Each structure stands twice: as structure tokens, then as C-alpha cells.
């Protein structure tokens, strides 16, 4: 038997162990019950899996189904700086090799992150726009990476670190990027979509990307679940799963080959006329569809930062300009429609100078008594001022309004200018008279083109179309062809008379004489307006516009061309008429419109000066 002292020790050790177990029991109680709320919430932070499922942003196609904008998935690669510890150089070297980055760059980023928030768990973005395949290769290579540590002689500590690096050092988030197979074609109409600040889905910033943002984006889904330590979701433990609903494709009415031709012609003319900019629109008169919308100067949507932001907006929709003499189309329409005049009614043009109220109006060439047809062809401000006075503000503003001026265009386009119409109760005679030849009102080029379409369409206005939402993969058949919401603006007879007058404008003696083509008869109306700022009209700053119809008698196309502050000549008849003619010929060729003149039938004419109104 043992001595008493030995039994004491035996009892002591037994009691110490049992006391230790009691202590551990208390510790377990503290962890599992007392701190349950706090610690289990912290634990859920690691196991919780919450993902917003982003549908791929849909595509934008031209009328032939050519893909103008597509979305490509890509990865953003992140690094956990906390795992680097003192081995930043080693980590940077390996990551740099895998991701083709300079190690110095990674080191700098890690050190900057450490300085920002020392010891904080977080992630830094080390590479954006990584193709999915490249990331897959990198992440597989990472699993076998040795980080320059010799695997045969690893200490326990090193092998732990190596394991952590392989599994948790790098990871990637999903993102997508817009790609433009046709470069900067149609860029201002398409607009851009950039990643939102929270990352993830792209958000439209301007153009159609903004206008139809929700349509293209679709509805994100959500997945709430649990994950294992590698961040892999455990489908068996899903609590919520709502799949993403993809959006719809956008099928434009734009014809890309024609668009291409128009853009090239426009930019050539803008540079040869040394203009600040310009725009051109081709519309289908029967369907009210936009076939081409060009603006200059444009930008590269893949790298929008390379151009000033002003270039991002689409001048056809966004610019507000005084229409100038082009507005005479609609004043004439009002006069004819209300039966105040016919094309053959005569008007006295005061030999080029007419005082009305406190202003004196001038024509650029002194005319005596002429018919309205001749007043239109020679763009007499006095003749149309008198007609405006005769119409009165109420009737003129009503007509302008019904042509779509002074309110937002019916085509959906973000940032489209509303313009400035004429008040129906305008008390000032001067303003009424000026408005009747296009001064003191403001329109966008697109509004002008749409209004001209109503004339070409026999006086009926329809809803203009630029884009239609279609389900992915929809065929041509699903694209509606019939114009919507027809609404009569003027009678068919009035429309025919206006077209007849326009035909004479693009004929010898008219202001658009230089638009004449040996193969086609065009109808046209030119306008040269002086640009203004808050101090009034700016000398030498003009906006030259032409609206034309092809063919003249039964127009299929309405074409608008405009130049902003051309320096080489400014009369629309000189600077934009040749552009109009070039566009019209290309459009006719593209759309298979047969020439209506026998070759060589045009009478060669030359006049020293083109006739044009002066603002």
C-alpha cells in the first residue's frame, strides 16, 4: 500500500483534472450559450452565401440583325492583402507572373491598402477586364503554385501559408463589358453602359443604352445559400433562389450599311467645310423609321474617355437649333391648310425691306410682287412674314405643334431636346413674324425630320420608330412594319402642294440648286440660321440645314443634313446641299430606288450665286 502522502497526490491530480473539466464546461457554456448570438452571427458571416445573379445585358442589333453592341463576360481579379504578411514580394512575384502584371505594381497596391486600413480584412482589385478563360487558367495554376517555396523542406508554418495562398489569396468577381463589333459606328445613338459603383451589372449612361436601360438589363436574380470554406455554394442548403430574368434585345430600324455611308459622307463634309460639327438623318417616309442617324464629331464607345463628353450626345436628338428658313415648310403648310393662300397667290415683297413693328425685315434679294411658290423657292422672309401675320399666332402655333414642335418627340431617346415652340397667344407681332420664317423658335434636327416625314407621308403623322424591343433570337417577322398611331396633320392636297414647291427648290433657280442630281429629282428646303447666345445672334456663326425628299413626287425617304458653324461658306445651298445629294444617291442605291431621270436630261446650269435667305 502507498503512503498517505502519495494518496494525497493521487487525490490532488484527480481533483485537478475534474476541476479542469468543470472549468471547460463553464467555458463551453460561455461560448455556446452566453455568447451564442454574437458568435453565431459572426460564424454565419463566413458561411453565408449571397449572390446577386446578373442577367447578361442584351444586345443591340441593326434592322438586318447585325450585332452593334454585345456583352462579353469577364472577371475582376481581387487579392487579399492580409494574407501576404511579410512576404509581399514573394506573393507579388508569383501573382505578377500569373496575371502578367508587374510585381512592383502589386506590391504598391498591397502597401497602399495596408496604409489605408492596417490589419483590416479586405480585398484589393489588382486586375480588371480579365477574360473568363484567362481567369480559369490562372486559378487552376494557382492551386499548384509553389510561390518559390521548396515543397520538400517546408516548415509547418510555410505549408500552412502555402495552403492559404493557394486557396484564398486570389479570387474573382463576375462582370461584363460591352463590345462594339463595328467600332464607333452609330456610337452617339447607341450610347454607353458602364459598371455601376457597386460593381456587377452595367448601367446605361447615355443614348439608347440609357433610354432602354431596364429593357436591356433585365431583372437580377438572387441566391441566398451557404458556402464552404472555399466559397463554393452548397446547393442543398439554399434558402432562396430567384433566377435572373434576362432582358430583351433592341432591334434598331437603322440600316448599318447606309449608316456607315452617311457617317463617312458627313465626316468628310464636316472636315472639308471646317465645321464644328454636323448631323444627318435618313428616315423612311412610309414607316417613319430612322434608317441612319449620323453625328460628327463622334467618339469611340469602347474608350469614351478619349473624347470630350460633348461628343457623347447625339446631335440629331440633343441639339436645339433655330430652324431658320426650313420652318417656311410648315408656315406654308398652315397657309395652304387654312385656305389663306394657294401657291399661286401673289404677295408683295417690298423690294427686299419691310418694317413691321419695331424691326425691319430683309430679303437677301429684292423682290417685287411674286407668287408664294416663287417666294418659297427664293426663300423670301418678307413673303412668309406677311403670311405669318395673316395666320396669327394661334393658327401658326397650332400647326407647328401638330407637326411635333415644342413638345418631346414621340420617339424614345434619352436626352432628346423638346425645343421651343410659338405660344398660341403670342402678343408680339415681331415674334410672330420671325417665327413664321424660323427665328425665335428652337427644334432638334430629329423633330424637323419627323415633321418633314409627315409631309412626305401625305400629311399624316405617325409614331417615329428607332428601336423595338424583341425577344432574343426573334426573327424578322416579329418586327412590326405598319406605322403606328396615324394622325392627320394636313390634308393630302396640301402635302402634295408643299412637295411640288420643294421640287422647285432643288431645281434651277432654287436655293438647293447644287443638290440637283442627273439621275433623281429631289424636293428640298434649305435654311441657314444664325446661332445665338445670351447676348443675341453671334456674327459669323451659322447653322446650315437642308431637308430633302426622294423622289420628289412620291417621297420614300426624308433626308436631313446639317452643319454646325461651317467656316468654308455657310449658305445651306452651298455647304450642305452637296452632302444631301451624296447621301440621297447612296441611300437610293442602297434601298433600290430607281432613278427617275434619263441620264443626261439635266440641263446644265450655272449661276454666279446660290440664292439664299439671310437671317
Amino acid at each position, binding site marked *: 500500500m502507498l503512503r498517505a502522502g502519495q494518496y494525497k497526490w493521487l487525490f490532488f491530480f484527480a481533483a485537478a483534472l475534474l476541476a479542469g473539466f468543470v472549468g471547460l464546461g463553464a467555458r463551453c457554456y460561455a461560448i455556446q450559450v452566453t455568447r451564442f448570438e454574437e458568435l453565431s452571427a459572426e460564424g454565419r458571416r463566413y458561411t453565408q452565401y449571397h449572390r446577386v445573379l446578373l442577367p447578361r445585358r442584351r444586345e443591340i442589333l441593326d434592322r438586318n440583325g447585325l450585332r452593334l453592341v454585345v456583352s462579353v463576360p469577364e472577371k475582376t481579379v481581387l487579392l487579399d492583402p492580409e494574407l501576404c504578411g511579410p512576404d509581399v514580394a514573394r506573393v507579388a512575384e508569383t501573382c505578377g507572373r500569373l496575371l502578367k502584371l508587374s510585381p512592383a505594381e502589386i506590391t504598391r497596391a498591397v502597401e497602399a491598402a495596408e496604409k489605408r486600413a492596417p490589419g483590416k480584412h479586405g480585398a484589393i482589385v489588382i486586375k480588371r477586364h480579365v477574360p473568363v478563360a484567362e481567369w480559369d487558367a490562372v486559378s487552376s495554376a494557382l492551386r499548384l503554385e509553389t510561390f518559390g517555396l521548396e515543397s520538400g523542406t517546408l516548415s509547418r508554418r510555410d505549408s500552412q501559408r502555402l495552403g492559404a495562398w493557394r486557396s484564398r489569396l486570389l479570387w474573382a468577381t463576375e462582370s461584363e463589358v460591352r463590345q462594339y463589333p463595328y467600332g464607333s459606328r452609330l456610337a452617339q445613338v447607341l450610347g454607353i453602359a458602364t459598371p455601376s459603383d457597386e460593381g456587377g451589372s452595367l448601367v446605361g449612361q447615355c443614348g439608347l443604352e440609357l433610354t432602354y436601360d431596364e429593357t436591356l438589363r433585365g431583372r437580377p436574380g438572387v441566391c441566398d445559400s451557404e458556402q464552404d*470554406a472555399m466559397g463554393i455554394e452548397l446547393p442543398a442548403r439554399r434558402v432562396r433562389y430567384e433566377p435572373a430574368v434576362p432582358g430583351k434585345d433592341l432591334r434598331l430600324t437603322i440600316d448599318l450599311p447606309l449608316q456607315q455611308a452617311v457617317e463617312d459622307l458627313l465626316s468628310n463634309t464636316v472636315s472639308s467645310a471646317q465645321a464644328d460639327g454636323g448631323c444627318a438623318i435618313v428616315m423612311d417616309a412610309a414607316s417613319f423609321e430612322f434608317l441612319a442617324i449620323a453625328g460628327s464629331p463622334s467618339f469611340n464607345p469602347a474608350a469614351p474617355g478619349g473624347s470630350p463628353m460633348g461628343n457623347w450626345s447625339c446631335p440629331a436628338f440633343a441639339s436645339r437649333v433655330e430652324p431658320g428658313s426650313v420652318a417656311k415648310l410648315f408656315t406654308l403648310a398652315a397657309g395652304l391648310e387654312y385656305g389663306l393662300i394657294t401657291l399661286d397667290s401673289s404677295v408683295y415683297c417690298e423690294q427686299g425691306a419691310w418694317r413691321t413693328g419695331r424691326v425691319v425685315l430683309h430679303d437677301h434679294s429684292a423682290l417685287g410682287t411674286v407668287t408664294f411658290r416663287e417666294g418659297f423657292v427664293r426663300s423670301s422672309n418678307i413673303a412668309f412674314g406677311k403670311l405669318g401675320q395673316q395666320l396669327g399666332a394661334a393658327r401658326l402655333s397650332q400647326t407647328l405643334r401638330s407637326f411635333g414642335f415644342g413638345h418631346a418627340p414621340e420617339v424614345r431617346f434619352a436626352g432628346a431636346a423638346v425645343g421651343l415652340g410659338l405660344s398660341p397667344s403670342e402678343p408680339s407681332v415681331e415674334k410672330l413674324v420671325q417665327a413664321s420664317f424660323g427665328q425665335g423658335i428652337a427644334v432638334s434636327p430629329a423633330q424637323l425630320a419627323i415633321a418633314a416625314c409627315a409631309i412626305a407621308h401625305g400629311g399624316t403623322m405617325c409614331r417615329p420608330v428607332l428601336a423595338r424591343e424583341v425577344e432574343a433570337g426573334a426573327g424578322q417577322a416579329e418586327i412590326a412594319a405598319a406605322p403606328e398611331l396615324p394622325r392627320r396633320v394636313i390634308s393630302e392636297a396640301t402635302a402634295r402642294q408643299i412637295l411640288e414647291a420643294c421640287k422647285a427648290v432643288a431645281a434651277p433657280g432654287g436655293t438647293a440648286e447644287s443638290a440637283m442630281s442627273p439621275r433623281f429629282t429631289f424636293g428640298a428646303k434649305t435654311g441657314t440660321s444664325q446661332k445665338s447666345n445670351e447676348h443675341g445672334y453671334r456674327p459669323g456663326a451659322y447653322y446650315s440645314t437642308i431637308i430633302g425628299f426622294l423622289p420628289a413626287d412620291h417621297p420614300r425617304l426624308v433626308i436631313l443634313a446639317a452643319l454646325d458653324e461651317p467656316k468654308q461658306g455657310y449658305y445651306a445651298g452651298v455647304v450642305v446641299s452637296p452632302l444631301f445629294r451624296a447621301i440621297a444617291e447612296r441611300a437610293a442605291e442602297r434601298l433600290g430606288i430607281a432613278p427617275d431621270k434619263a441620264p443626261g436630261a439635266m440641263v446644265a446650269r450655272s449661276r454666279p450665286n446660290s440664292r439664299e435667305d439671310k437671317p
Partner: protein
Amino acid sequence: MKPSVVGLLLAVGALCALGAVMLLSSMVEAAHLGRFQQHLCWLGLGLVGGCGGFFLPWDKLRQHDAPAWLLALAFGALFLVLVPGVGTRHGGARRWLGHTQPSEFAKIVLVIFLADYAARRQSAMGKLGAGLVVPGAIAASLACLVVAEPDWGTACLLGAVALAMLAVGGCKPRYFVPAVVVMAGFVLLSIHFNSLRAERVQAWLHPERYREGVGWQGWQSILALSGGHFFGVAPGGGRQKLGFVPESQTDFILTLVGEEMGLAGTWSVLLLFAVIVYFGMKIAWRARDPFRQFLAFGLTFLIGLQAFINIAVVCGVLPNKGIPLPFVSYGGSGTVCLLVAVGMIAGAGRTVSAVQRAVDEGDRDEPA
């Protein structure tokens, strides 16, 4: 059989069953099922070994100096492990001979040897040389071999068990208290000069600062435990085993118990170990000769201390040591050795027939 032996065996059986269930629960893939079968094989082998331990004829064995031979064998095996090409490396340490860990074997052998040593020299144990220096040097050299693997956890365990056995064996407190101080100083120095251990201690002192690094395991194990609340999230429903707690099947098996069975699970485990310690100590108290008393005490203390350290690590009370939970953790040689040890404890407490007793009485004629 005596009630204390029955109680001891029931508690061990319950822990083994719990271990098997938790191992099964931790298998997230069918491919792991082989491990479960392997574990069952080890348990079966342990059962056989335990029976052997129960019936060991200690008196005859001691006559032939078997404890010393076993110690020599343990030294040999621990040397062999260190020989490159013979010992198997795993996770930065050379601890394996084939599929067995000699250090597990060495723990039991050291207890047997010290029990034999102290029983033989009962009268001399009060002296410095015989009571502390000689057995202490033997234990220390064994521990040094284990440290060389390196396996600090087991070495500490060996040291603590040796000191406890010497205390109970009759060594005077004024001798071994300084030894405890020296040992503690040695451990502290080793921590100071080893960055990994220093980092582990730091991670233990400041878990929130080392969450993503060396403290990951400890922090995640506390989080896993906390997920259990009173009754756990049901077997199989635990999350932390999905890679959050490294080695969740071996050293950190208790996190799984705590998460899936809650406080009920952890307290049950503690209670079962308390039962083992209680009955083991009772057997030691009442065993019929000093050798069996020392043996039962040493082995019970070994099991109890190992359980205490493991659970303390899991609860974040002690820094990470790499010591499995007896009977519950997955692990081959460790499980078998400990089951043999249980057999020996039970054997020390078995009732003996009158004939046997007479034989024993006859044996006892020689001076102890």
C-alpha cells in the same frame, strides 16, 4: 467485475461510439467512407488490444523486466521515425512509421516503465537521485526525441504525466517543484525562440487579430462551437466541417460535436471523461499493489490530461497543440494505444480469484 471497471468501460465505449458517429457525420463525400471503415477497423483492433491489456500477467512480465524492454523498444521506434526515408513526413513533421505514430506508443510505455520503476523503488523514491534525476532523465530524453519530430504537444504531455507519476510515486515536493519550474521555463524559452509557436501563442492571446492567419483554426473552432447553442444543429447539419475548421475529423472533432449536438454534446463529452477519470482514479486508489496503482493512475491521468488539453485548445483556452481527443478523434495508433491503456486500467482493478490472490501473496514475498 467491479462497478468502477464497468463504469469506466461504459464511458470509453460511449466516447468511441460518439467518435464513430461524428466521423460519419463529417464525411461530406462518399469517397471519404473508406476512412470510416478504417476507423472501425482500428476500433476493433483496439478492442482486441484492450482485452490483451486487461489480461496482461504483469507479475510475470515484471519479473522478466518487460517494462524496461518496452522502453527500449519505444526509444528505438522514436529514433527510427527521425531517420529520413523510414519516418513519414506529414504536414511538416516526421511523426509516422507507416501508419502508426510511435509517440502514441511511447506515452503508454513511459507510464508502464515509471509505474514499474516507482513500485520497485518505493523506499528510495524520497531521494533526489532515484526519485527524480534518474526517472526524470529517462522521461526527458524520451520527450526530447518526440520534440525532434517535432511534436511539442505530445512532449509536454509526456513531461506532465511523468511529473505527476513521480509525485504520486513518492518523489518529494521540494525536489520536483523546482523541476516543474525548470520545465515551464524551458517551454517558455522554446516559445520565445520559435516564431511559429510564438505566433500561435499570440493568436491564442489575441484571436481577433490573427483570424485570417495562424488563428484561423482556433477562431473558426470557437465559431463552430457557438453555432450549436443548447442542442446543436442536428447531426450532419454542421457547417464548419466544410473546410472552415482544418482537421475537423482529428484534433478538432469536438467542434463538430459542439456544433451538431450543442452544449448537450460538449457537456456529455466532458462528463464521460470525468467519469473515466473518476473511475480510473478509484481503481488506482484501490488496486492491490503499488505497481498497479501507479499504472492505473498514470494511464488515467494521461487520458484525462490529453482530453483536457484537447478540449481546452478547441475552446480557445490553450494554444493549438496538435493533440487528438482520446477515443473520439479519428486516428489509428492513438486510438489503439489508448484502448490498450483502458484495458490495463481495467485490468489493474479487476477482482482476483482466491487462488490468484494466493499466488500473488506468494510473489509478494520479495522486497518491493
